[in-house]
């Protein structure tokens, strides 16, 4: 909630997510990124089994809507007439009430899913016929602001 809790280095206004370690960060950073070799060459890709990693990010779903409706209701904006609280109290209350956990939301859900897949391992890949490709692509939700120049 406050700037102070995010002080981790630098000037203190930006949280630094230093080295690797968080699954959420890793999934976001590397999945679907980087050079795809089989696009350029017919490389003898070895028949290595790959776990299906489905890190689909759902941008707007009913769950998302309900989550934000709930977060809004927790604000208790209209408590005034009913013996409500001051703003600072509200902010505190909401924070204690777990706003943080709630707001992390969508990506967490995706990560849970990844963890499910990773932990359920062998059972999870039986659904694939071809078995040994890269993790399933996420739906293309990101638009590259600038495509690289080498569109060959």
């Amino acid at each position, binding site marked *: *909630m406050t700037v102070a809790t995010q002080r981790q280095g*630098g*000037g203190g*206004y*930006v*949280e*630094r*997510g*230093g080295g*690797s*370690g968080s699954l959420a960060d890793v*999934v976001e*950073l*590397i999945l*679907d*990124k*980087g*050079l*795809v*070799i089989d696009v*350029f*060459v017919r*490389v*003898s*890709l*070895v028949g*290595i*089994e790959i*776990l299906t*990693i489905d890190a689909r990010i759902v*941008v*707007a779903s009913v769950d*998302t*809507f*309900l989550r*934000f*409706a709930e977060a*809004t*209701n927790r*604000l208790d*904006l*209209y408590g005034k007439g009913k013996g409500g609280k001051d703003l600072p109290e509200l902010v505190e209350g909401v*924070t204690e009430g777990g706003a943080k956990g*709630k*707001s992390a939301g*969508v990506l967490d859900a*995706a990560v849970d899913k*990844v963890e499910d*897949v990773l932990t359920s*391992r062998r059972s999870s890949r039986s659904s694939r016929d071809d078995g040994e490709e*890269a*993790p399933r692509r996420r739906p293309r*939700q*990101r*638009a*590259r*602001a600038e495509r*690289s120049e*080498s569109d*060959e």
Partner: protein
Amino acid sequence: MSPRYVYGLVAAGAAIPEGLAGLGPSGQVTTIEHGRVAAVVGDVPADRPLGTRDDLIAHETVLDTLAAKTAVLPMRFPAVVEEQGVVDELLGPNEEFFASALADLEGRVQFTLRARYEQDVVLREIVENDSEIRDLQERVREMPEDASYYDRVRLGELIVAAMERRREGEAAQVFAKLEPLAVRVAAHQPTSPDEVVNAAFLVERDRMAAFDAATEDVGREHAGRLRLRLLGPLAPYDFAPAE
């Protein structure tokens, strides 16, 4: 005949940091050179499929550690090639292409920035400024939870839409500040309605400090409203040549 995991590509003769920990059973990471380029490779676990949390983290850690020292072209996870094929099929036919891609990335690293609304601050603002949302919220509050389902969905939908309208302006401010310090920018669709910026910046090594300082400035300007999170320096995952 043995499979090699390919983490990425570097220029031939590039200094490889000591102590890289690969995802294979040996943990070793070595290079296979061909002409002007080299593949950074390791062994592959034979008894299990790839794709665990540790595999992903090892892939990233190897690449980020390399990127701290030298230009690296990351492969998309997971790239496994027959050992013989690393030279014959990967490096050989593509030497020119890889060399020029590496030259482009020389002296540059990636930073990834995520900015998210301080949710309560922005929610409050939205409710206060929109009478439809305010009315709907009042109604929802009066009703038992199971009777208000559709109203709650509608309320959330309106809030999400309001947040998305609002964030465009703020995202533009952030980009205006940071884009001049980057060689290229890859802006991604936010992953959640309260995410304002999710973007990768390709930054010259000698401007890293300036980029960092500019990010701090942005954080200071938007303190209490945006939460910024900066990852990097990273390997240029978002700036590998397009498919």
